[in-house]
C-alpha cells in the first residue's frame, strides 16, 4: 500500500469516526426531542407537578433547577477562583502543590452518588440543614469545584505571562496583577467554562436525591420574603430539580402520564443545556471582541 493510499484511507476512517459521533448525538437529540416536545404545552410549563393525576407540569422543578444552579455557582465560583489563583500564581513547585492537584483531581472523579451521600450525612444530618436548596447547593459545589477550578486555572494560565510581568514591573502585587489584569483578560474563557459547568450541574441528579430532596413544595411566586417556606427565594426549603424529577417519575412515579412528563422534562433539560452551550459561545465571543477590538 502506498503512503498516499494509506493517507486517504486513514483520513476517510477519521471522517467516518467523527461522523458517527455526530450521528450518535443527532439521534440522541432527535429521539429526546421527538418524544418530548409534543408534551410541551402552556400547562406543562406553568403548572406544578401532580403526584398521581394526569396533567402535571414542571414549573416548580424548572425554577428549582435554575435557582439551585445560581446558588451553586455563587458558592463555588469564588472558591474555585481562589484555588485557581493560588495554583496559577502563588503555588510553589513542590510536593504540597502536587498533592493539592491530586486531591482536586480525585474530587473530580468521585462518583456523584458518593458526593450525594456525603452531602446527606454531612449537610443534611450533621449540619442540620435538612433537605434543602442549601444542602443541595453545597453538594453540587463539591461536585462542581474540581472542574471549575481547572477551567479557571486553564483560562488564567492561558493569558501570556508578559501580562503578568507588565503588572509586576509597575510595582503591583501579584494579587493586583492577577485580579485586575489577568482575571479580566481571562474572563471570556472563565465565563465559557462556568456556563459549560452549569450544564453539568443542571443535569445532575444523583448528588441531589439525598440533599436537595425529592419533593417540591408548592411555591407562591408572589411571595418574595426569603423566610417564608412558599417563597421561591427561601434556601431552606426542599427542592426537587428537573433532573431529580425525571429520576423520580421513572422510579416511583404514580402519575398515569409519567412517561410523557418524563419525556417532556428530558427535552426541557436538553434544550436548557443546549442554550447554555450557545450562550457560552456567544458570550465568550462577545467579550473577546470587546476586549480586543476598538
Amino acid at each position: 500500500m502506498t503512503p498516499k493510499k494509506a493517507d486517504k484511507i486513514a483520513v476517510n476512517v477519521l471522517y467516518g469516526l467523527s461522523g458517527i459521533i455526530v450521528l450518535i448525538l443527532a439521534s440522541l437529540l432527535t429521539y429526546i426531542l421527538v418524544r418530548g416536545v409534543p408534551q410541551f404545552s402552556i400547562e406543562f410549563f406553568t403548572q406544578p407537578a401532580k403526584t398521581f393525576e394526569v396533567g402535571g407540569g414542571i414549573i416548580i422543578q424548572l425554577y428549582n433547577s435554575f435557582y439551585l444552579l445560581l446558588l451553586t455557582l455563587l458558592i463555588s465560583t469564588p472558591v474555585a477562583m481562589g484555588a485557581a489563583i493560588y495554583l496559577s500564581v502563588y503555588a510553589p513547585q513542590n510536593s504540597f502543590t502536587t498533592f493539592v492537584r491530586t486531591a482536586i483531581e480525585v474530587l473530580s472523579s468521585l462518583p456523584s452518588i458518593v458526593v450525594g451521600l456525603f452531602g446527606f450525612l454531612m449537610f443534611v444530618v450533621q449540619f442540620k440543614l435538612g433537605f434543602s436548596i442549601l444542602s443541595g447547593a453545597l453538594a453540587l459545589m463539591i461536585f462542581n469545584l474540581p472542574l471549575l477550578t481547572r477551567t479557571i486555572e486553564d483560562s488564567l494560565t492561558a493569558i501570556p505571562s508578559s501580562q503578568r510581568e507588565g503588572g509586576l514591573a509597575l510595582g503591583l502585587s501579584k494579587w493586583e496583577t492577577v485580579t485586575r489584569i489577568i482575571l479580566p483578560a481571562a474572563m471570556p474563557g472563565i465565563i465559557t467554562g462556568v456556563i459549560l459547568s452549569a450544564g453539568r450541574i443542571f443535569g445532575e441528579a444523583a448528588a441531589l436525591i439525598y440533599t436537595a430532596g425529592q419533593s417540591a413544595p408548592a411555591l407562591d411566586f408572589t411571595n418574595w420574603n426569603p423566610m417564608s417556606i412558599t417563597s421561591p427565594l427561601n434556601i431552606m426549603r426542599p427542592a426537587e430539580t428537573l433532573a431529580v424529577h425525571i429520576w423520580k417519575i421513572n422510579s416511583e412515579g404514580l402519575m398515569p402520564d409519567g412517561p410523557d412528563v418524563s419525556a417532556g422534562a428530558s427535552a426541557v433539560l436538553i434544550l436548557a443545556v443546549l442554550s447554555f452551550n450557545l450562550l457560552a459561545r456567544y458570550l465568550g465571543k462577545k467579550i473577546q471582541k470587546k476586549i480586543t477590538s476598538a
Partner: protein
Amino acid sequence: MEETVQHFKKRSPKRKQERFGKTISLVATIFIVSIVFSILFFVASRGLRTFTEHGVSAIDFFAGTAWRPGEVSDAGEPLVGAFPMIAGSFLVTIFSALLATPFALGAAIFMTEISPKTGKKYLQPVIELLVGIPSVVYGFIGLTVIVPFIRQIFGGTGFGVLAATLVLFVMILPTTTSMAVDTLNAVPRYYREASFAMGATRWQTIYKVVLRAASPGLLTAVIFGMARAFGEALAVQMVIGNAALVPDSLTTPASTLTSILTMNMGNTVLGTLENDVLWSLATILLFMSLFFNILTRWIGKKGAMK
C-alpha cells in the same frame, strides 16, 4: 540617607495586599483539599467497619462471589462477597474504554489535524452537548432503546454488561475526546512542519510524529474516561440489570459497584453490616479513582522524562 533607607524599607500597602491575596487563595485551596479529605475519611471510616466492626475477612469481601448482605453462610459468615460487582465494574469500564478510545482519538485527530475548522464548528459543540446530557436521560434512553435492541439481536433480557458498555461508551466519549484534543493541540506546530518538510503524508505525520509525541497525554485521556465510567451510577444502574452475579456473558444481567451502591443505600440502616458493606463498596470506588489519578500522574511523569 537613613531616610531613603526608611523609604525603601517601609512596608508598602502592597505587601499587606499580597499577604491577603495569598491567604485567601490558599484558604480556598485548603478548603477544597479538606473537602476531599473529609470525604475520604468519612467514606473510608465507614467502609472499614465491615472489617473491623463486623469481622468480615478481606479475602471473603474481595474474592467472595456470594452477595447476600443480611444473610449468613452455613458457617455463619456474612455473605458479602463483592467480587461480582468488582468484576462488573472493571468489565464495563474496560469495554467502554476500548470502544470509546478509537472514536475519541479519531474525533480528536479530526478536530486538530484534518479539519480544525469543521471540528471547531461542529464537533466541538457536539462534544460539549454530550457532556451536558444528564445521566438520568442516558439511562432512560438506554432502557428504552439499547436494552430492547440488544434483546432483539442477542436474545435474553437485554440487560447486562453490553448494554452498560454501550451507554458508558457515549457517556465517556466527550471526556476522552476533549482531553485528547487538548493533548494534540499541545504538540508543537514545528513537529508537523518538520515531518511535512521531509515529504511525509498527513497520515504518516499524524501516526508517526503527532501521536507518538502525544501518547502519554492520550493515555491520560483514556484513563480519565475510564475513571468516569467506573464512577457512573444512575445510567448504569438502569441498564445493567443489577444481579450480583459474576458476569458469564455480555448479555446476562450483572452489576457494578455503583449500581449496587445506589440501589441499596436507602434501604439499609446506618451502622448495620448491610449499610457498612455498601460504604466498603464506596471506598473501593474512592481508591479506584485515586488509583486512576496516580496512574495518570505517573504516565505524565514518564512521558515528560522521555
